[in-house]
């Protein structure tokens, strides 16, 4: 307890708090810019952070991380251009709300849900970290293959109205995901001898193209229409944008469910917050029933997605701190920074350096609180972005997208990937093919292929390994049941028509 209080006192210094505010603001801005992601912000902060005292460095990195994920949802809601991949699911309902003049409400719900998700996972981290980390270790390649198969089927239910068009989109995503080095032996696939393609199509530029560039092209095709919705904050609008008690009641369960899904995904290596947000979206869509507004501006969908992706962010600290195994790219960078600060992360961190562990807890907690404060202030100003005429706003979006795509690897090829994806998504929009299945299958395919082929490596090529393992057997059976149920539901919908 003494160590805890010392750590807490250390964080409540004016300079530390100032570092926190600045980092939260920068994190939000970077997160909001399509193409610039949290990992870039954290990576760029490391060279600065290693010259700071440990407390300041941790505050800086954790605040950037917490705020960046929320920042991504700002542009997702306002511009339908998710700033980070994790916010792609938020854009579906969040942007619809903005179009209905509920931008401020959507932003506030996203902020609340983000904070709730973060707090939920921090609580898990503080209370059950060693236990949960041990549990996560039991998921080897075979279990992961089953889990990812199930994920595939669940998020497949987000395919939109037409199953054929959804499947087409998903299949294209799988095809695009196979570009690059084979995960087992490293032979290039579909790279045409271009070394820049060995890592596959980089996913930030792809995402930015699919959403932001497609939106810009759509607007351009319509001659940059004036904002159709009224963003004048009149008294009536103010009332509509106010969060009521019944709103809070409506979003409380989706936030809890989203946080549980998000935390579970965060424990598993290699799935990530984009998928957790889509899983939460699929879950809310199913549980809300067929009469719900999910897909056309439902507050519950925004709440579920945002709590889920933020919970994933917090939960990745569980294996990071309890085992010394980073849960994702950002925590890997933070671990690297800890090493440079003279702290050797590992399973004994709790014993050898409890101060650091408590500092991380407190920093994560305080930066979430700070994010809410800064966010509430910023929301008032941010909605005015919608008053900027599209004729000026959209070219700026296109420019930041191009720059952001380039910055990921300092590679011009990625800018072309972004353009290509943008044109493709624009055409898809015209012919009514949904883009989300493509993105989802593009993200799930590589870890799924890796897990399946790792499993086959130690079964020496025998597929029986997937049915003799009880977890993967259950996952296969559940997936089959979901597919059958969805197919039956589709038939019922088709026959009476």
């Amino acid at each position: 307890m003494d160590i805890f209080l010392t750590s807490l006192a250390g964080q409540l210094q004016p300079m530390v708090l100032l570092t926190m505010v600045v980092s939260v603001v920068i994190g939000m801005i970077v997160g909001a810019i399509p193409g610039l992601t949290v990992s870039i912000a954290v990576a760029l902060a490391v060279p600065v952070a290693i010259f700071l005292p440990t407390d300041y460095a941790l505050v800086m990195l954790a605040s950037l991380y917490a705020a960046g994920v929320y920042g991504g949802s700002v542009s997702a809601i306002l511009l339908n251009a998710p700033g980070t991949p994790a916010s792609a699911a938020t854009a579906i309902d969040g942007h619809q709300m903005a179009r209905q003049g509920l931008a401020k409400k959507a932003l506030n719900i996203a902020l609340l849900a983000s904070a709730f998700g973060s707090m939920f996972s921090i609580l898990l981290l503080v209370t059950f970290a060693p236990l949960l980390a041990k549990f996560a270790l039991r998921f080897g390649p075979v279990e992961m293959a089953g889990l990812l198969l199930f994920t595939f089927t669940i998020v497949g239910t987000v395919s939109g109205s037409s199953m054929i068009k959804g499947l087409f989109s998903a299949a294209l995503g799988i095809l695009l995901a196979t570009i690059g080095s084979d995960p087992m032996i490293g032979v290039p696939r579909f790279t045409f001898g271009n070394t820049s393609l060995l890592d596959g199509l980089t996913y930030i530029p792809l995402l930015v193209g699919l959403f932001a560039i497609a939106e810009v092209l759509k607007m351009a095709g319509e001659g940059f229409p004036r904002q159709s919705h009224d963003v004048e904050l009149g008294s009536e609008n103010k009332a509509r944008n106010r969060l009521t008690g019944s709103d809070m009641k409506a979003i409380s369960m989706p936030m809890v469910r989203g946080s549980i899904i998000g935390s579970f995904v965060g424990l598993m290596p290699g799935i990530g917050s984009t998928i957790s947000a889509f899983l939460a979206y699929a879950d809310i869509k199913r549980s809300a029933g067929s009469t719900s507004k999910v897909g056309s501006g439902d507050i519950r969908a925004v709440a579920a997605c945002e709590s889920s992706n933020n919970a994933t962010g917090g939960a990745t600290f569980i294996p990071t701190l309890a085992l010394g195994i980073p849960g994702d790219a950002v925590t890997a960078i933070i671990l690297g920074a800890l090493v440079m600060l003279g702290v050797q992360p590992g399973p004994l961190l709790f014993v050898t350096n409890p101060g650091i562990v408590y500092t991380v807890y407190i920093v994560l907690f305080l930066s979430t609180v700070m994010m809410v404060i800064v966010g509430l202030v910023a929301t008032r100003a941010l909605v005015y972005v919608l008053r900027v005429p599209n004729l000026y706003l959209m070219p700026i979006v296109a420019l930041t997208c191009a720059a952001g795509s380039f910055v990921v690897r300092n590679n011009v090829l990625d800018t072309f990937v972004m353009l290509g994806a943008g044109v493709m998504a624009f055409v898809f929009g015209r012919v009514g093919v949904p883009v989300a299945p493509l993105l989802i299958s593009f993200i799930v395919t590589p870890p799924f292929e890796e897990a399946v082929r790792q499993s086959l490596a130690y079964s020496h090529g025998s597929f029986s390994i997937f049915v003799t393992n009880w977890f993967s057997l259950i996952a296969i059976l559940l997936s089959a049941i979901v597919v059958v149920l969805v197919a039956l539901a589709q038939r019922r919908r088709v026959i009476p028509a």
Partner: protein
Amino acid sequence: MRNLIAKIGLAAAVALAPMSAFADWKPERPINIIVGFSAGGGTDATARLIASSAQEFFEVPLVVVNRPGASGTLAAEIVAGSEPDGLTLLVAGGSESTSVPNHLKTNYSLDQLRGVIRVNREHMVIVTKAGSGLKSAEDIVAAAKENPGGLTFGSSGPASILHSAFLVFAKQAGIEMTHVPFQGGAPALAALLGGHIDMTILTPGDAKAQSEAGNVNLIATTSDRAPQLPDLASLSELGYDVNVENMKGLVVQADTPDEVVQYLHDKFKAAMESETFESLAGRANIQPAYLNGADFDAAMQNMSKAIKEALSE
């Protein structure tokens, strides 16, 4: 006649011009230090360490440029195909130099790069799961001989230096094991602790932390003894002729003239002897290991040769 002498003089001047230009060669434009990995990783740390401590010895800016992609081979390809003007340096000595070109077709070879200086080295430690019954290198060899291909080793990716180190060990011990690649070292460690693979390779720092927590058995280092783990024997001490490790240093395009390489070497060597370097290296947990350009080249060639032999069955 005067005309002829003038002509000879001119010809001589032309012929000597490049020589004299190189003799007191000095960079006149910024020097780019290319890193094949993202900002925030180990290779990036080496680059920023050497760049920030060497800056005071150079009149032109030293710019660290991250060109991540394809396990560092994208950056290696860029430098191998660059102008031999000494203005484009690569942080090399790891997978992209000694390992990948032996496994896969790359658009460059180690011969197209020329060492300037070796900055640091990183030992690699083979570990198994605690309580697995594999407590020593002999245990591993015995188990593998009993059941060829039955033991699995995890690496940070196909063709990585971790993959190669296991292949060289297997070749030297005359055993056969199954490779299970992961996307990086962290998931491989998670798979080891979960009991899904039999062994993997860690840095000495990670190995020490996991071993003190009772999670892993330390088997051996793959080069010589690591300063962080002075009691752990190396594979070569145990009778397996293995010398594979991660090195980091600066290289340039192979056709870069001697004078240019010498100039760069001298400046960076002075940087390595500076106090800034010493304090930053200590802070970043980087183990300095100076070698001159020619010796660095020889070290990389030796490792590459051993890996190539292990791959040719």
